[in-house]
């Protein structure tokens, strides 16, 4: 875990308001792609951020721009295969039309830019990326992904204290 990650990490309790959205992205039928949902499940089970709206979805759609236009603060959680991420990474997202769009693949930055251009509003948006390793058609996280999930959970539990 790098120092830069810690610098970006807010106390999760700042998301514990009705105007916050916690949005897990992934597919539990594709092994470690289920990390985003697993983090949401943990929040729900532990009653953490119970005042915020939580949701789990397979992928982002352009209409999510409308969804986040009603929120003050949004936390997306997704699995990542980025080599630079060892366990997890927390980043603030800035609006950017980055032209990655297909109807199956639109970036969070583009969603935020869409929100800005369509609704003239930019919520505070963060992304928690948790490192995954396997993506085949199989349910269940790999052991290494579970380890990374637990590290991220411990980290956020600790900085709330």
């Amino acid at each position: 875990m790098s120092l830069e990650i810690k610098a970006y990490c807010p106390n999760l309790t700042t998301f514990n308001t009705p105007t916050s959205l916690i949005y897990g992205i992934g597919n539990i039928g594709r092994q470690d792609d289920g990390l985003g949902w697993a983090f949401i499940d943990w929040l729900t089970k532990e009653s953490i951020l119970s005042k915020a709206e939580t949701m789990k979805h397979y992928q982002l759609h352009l209409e999510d721009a409308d969804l986040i236009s009603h929120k003050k603060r949004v936390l997306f959680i997704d699995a990542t295969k980025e080599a630079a991420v060892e366990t997890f990474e927390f980043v603030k997202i800035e609006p950017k039309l980055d032209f990655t769009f297909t109807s199956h693949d639109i970036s969070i930055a583009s969603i935020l830019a869409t929100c800005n251009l369509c609704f003239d509003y930019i919520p505070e948006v963060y992304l928690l990326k948790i490192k995954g390793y396997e993506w085949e058609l199989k349910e269940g996280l790999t052991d290494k992904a579970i380890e990374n999930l637990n590290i991220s959970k411990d980290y956020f539990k600790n900085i709330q204290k």
Partner: protein
Amino acid sequence: MGKKIIIDPVTRVEGHGKVTVHLDDNNKVIDAKLHVVEFRGFEKFVQGRPYWEAPMLLQRICGICFVSHHLCGAKVLDDMIGVGHSTGNNITVTAEKLRRLGHYAQQLQSHVTAYFYLIVPEMLFGMDAPPEQRNVLGLLETNPEMVKRVVALRKWGQEVIKAVLGKKMHGISSVPGGVNQNLSVEARDRLLNGEEGLISMDEVIDYAQDGLKLFYDFHKKNREEVDTFGEFEALNLSLVDEKGNVDYYHGKMRIVDNDKNIVEEFDYHEYLDFFSEGTEEWSYMKFPFLKSLGREKGSVRVGPLGRLNVTKAYSTPLAQEALERFHHYTKGKSNNKTLHTNWARAIEILHSAELIKELLNDTDLQKDSLILMPPKTDWTGEGIGVVEAPRGTLLHHYKANKEGNITFANLVVATTQNNTVMNRTVRSVADKYLNGNDIITEGMMNAIEVGIRAYDPCLSCATHAVGQMPLVVTIFDAKGNKIDEQIKN
């Protein structure tokens, strides 16, 4: 020295594919192919699973047309337990109407995605526009109000799906013999009247009409290019009702030729008697064809253009008016203009919206007779389901053993049905845009992609893909030497 150009990946098409164009020493196109390089997985994946799981598992093939896969699978399960149109013991009226409502909503939102996100930007900015402009994000920068409407349309379609299937994506409402819930009055009124942040049914129809007008305006300005782009004759396939009009949920399979003569018409349970599938070593996607006509002449076109060529009329007024204009344009003959698929798609957005309005005003949707439960002795262990998915005719076929575990699954999806005509489109467009040129511009390569995108293919569906494949753009000379390579995206 001849050249081989590979366009890979085909952007803004679901899944992954690549196009190779072979040029001779004079830069004349000598061959062009659409390759699908993902591999099959789902049909094996479901084997050994309980039969009732199949529609839930197989809808995960796709995040766009999951309702079609779910409903198609549900129709198979109806067959397996001895219920359905083929048995004379059909599911209840309420159950069928609820399934149709979800189906039409998915067609609406899927077509809206394809049309507004992927196609309209190209219509507005042109095929030669910079790649960073000719997409929905380019549209967003120049016309955010239009995108706002598209977002509203998508959101409304997803809300209908959620109301019917319980979730916006990969929901489950259809069960063997019917559905598990009806539509509440509150949900119906919300969809009809809208609320803060949700447009009304009438606004959906207004926006659908505006979308169609976009095509008319584009066509008026670019008639020559639009009408001649990828034009070639093909057979057309659609499910039809007793009157010979498209039925997106159920009917007979009808195939018509260029003069709209019926070439074949049959109960889809007899599909294997009429269709066979060819294979090529250069693609994982199969090539279905009518046995009676053979591989060369027996391939069919499915999807919006195929359906509008087959159907004689619509039951809803605004779509019927649009259909008459569409039919009149080709003077009663089949329309073979690839880019008119986008016209057909815009008409189907309107048709779907009108069909949804009819259903939302139908009180059968609030009734409680939802499911038939036949005796176990009616178990057949095999079923075939067909629906008209947004991209075209979709077929699922399962068999199960006495314990109810799947032993066989076969899926023939719309993109597979369109495989041959997509390849012909690629060849046709390559001939027109690449012939005689020794410089291959991005705009010219995009023309080929435009031809493919008209079919809105889902290559993940077509191959039931597992995993990911690396993709590159490569040019080879006639001797197989690599002379250029690039990665798009």
